[in-house]
């Protein structure tokens, strides 16, 4: 099996601190990479570097055999980024927010309403994001991930603010994505119960 996403000898320095050095991994289709470590150990920074938002001090991230610095457009086409901040407009409704999404990146041909129903947010369609609870907003952010046609899911603490059912749902959704040949890099504190080949990366 060949790796689709690989990182070679990454070094990241933020301010005065070296977060990690000589970090490498390779991820193939259907695999999950779990990032673990204490608060402030650099999980989010590593994810942001993988998304291409942070400039690395050293090393290279390679997607489909091409460094992402050179093939940024193609890389962005195949990834979706679930950040800590949900990235949804508080004054717009759920549907308006997700419609805007569909102009930004390739969208899978899935039934919009079915996705909302699965996440238990179809009742909230007409409400502005402002009136939704933090957990409900997180579910809308998950809807963005589910609606996208991306192969690579990069998720920063996807379980935050979710209830027990919601956490199970994330496990289930990610598991399904992986069994369809997708990939996922996830930073998580909770125990993750996903039935897929999993690599763990512990940051110190």
């Amino acid at each position, binding site marked *: 099996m060949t790796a689709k996403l690989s990182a070679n000898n990454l070094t990241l320095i933020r301010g005065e601190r070296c977060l990690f050095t000589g970090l490498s991994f390779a991820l193939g289709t259907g695999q999950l990479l779990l990032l673990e470590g204490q608060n402030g150990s650099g999980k989010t920074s590593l994810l942001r570097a993988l998304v291409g*938002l942070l400039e690395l001090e050293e090393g290279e991230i390679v997607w489909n055999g091409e460094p992402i610095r050179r093939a940024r457009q193609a890389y962005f*086409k195949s990834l979706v*980024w679930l950040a800590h901040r949900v990235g949804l407009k508080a004054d717009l409704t759920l549907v308006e927010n997700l419609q805007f*999404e569909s102009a930004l990146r390739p*969208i899978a041909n899935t039934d919009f309403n079915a996705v909302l129903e699965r996440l238990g947010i179809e009742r909230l369609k007409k409400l502005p994001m402002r009136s939704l609870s933090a957990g409900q907003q997180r579910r809308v952010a998950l809807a963005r991930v589910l609606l996208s*046609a991306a192969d690579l899911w990069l998720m920063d603490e996807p379980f935050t603010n979710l209830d027990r059912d919601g956490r199970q749902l994330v496990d289930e959704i990610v598991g399904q994505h992986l069994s369809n040949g997708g990939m996922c890099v996830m930073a998580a504190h909770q125990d993750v119960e996903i039935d897929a080949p999993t690599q763990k990366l512990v940051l110190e």
Partner: protein
Amino acid sequence: MNSAAEQTPGLLAGLTATVRRDLLLAWKRPGDVLNPLFFFAMVCTLFPLAVGPSVEQLQFSGPGILWVAALLAMLLSLNSLFLADFEDGSLEQLLVSPQPLVLLGLGKTIAHWLTSGLPLVIISPLMAMTFQMPLESIGVLMLTLTLGTISLSMLGSVGAALTVGLYRGTALLSLLILPLAMPVLIFGARTVSLAAAGDVYSGGIFALAAYAVGAVSLAPYATAAALRISNE
């Protein structure tokens, strides 16, 4: 994975969607749009009250004051151009989109001009009346303001993108933008004065138009680069 079943949005889809979304947001929160407009209207109506009713004096100082008020109103509105998107994380989503960031930033800037520059142009004839400006110069005032505010929105987007990551970057933003905005102010105010005095003024219009064309074609690239730096 299911590459056959996916729909990739077109190149201009991102631009139009960004303009539409920002206009929709402005519609839902009209306060942000009205603030600079009120500022412009207040300066322009208070000045004649303070200066006195002498028609000669009002006509003489009118173009300059209108233009300074317009410039400051634009500066006032620039700070919020990328700030809300930065704070709620939607700017990051724009940055990791396969759509070219140049077009997405341009979309946001166009929406900014439509909600802050265009309203100034529209109420400017009313403000010109408080200065008793001759009727013939009002068309010139609107034309120069249109060209000038386009330049200011474009230049301002670069400054706003550079300062978006900084805590309270407003003062720095003004400092960055003002030197670049000086030609707009000088040409704008002088052209209106010349038109009011019945002199030849076409040179100023050409200069403002050239400046606007330059800003529209170059600023989006600088804005995109600045946004990537600010989000590190």
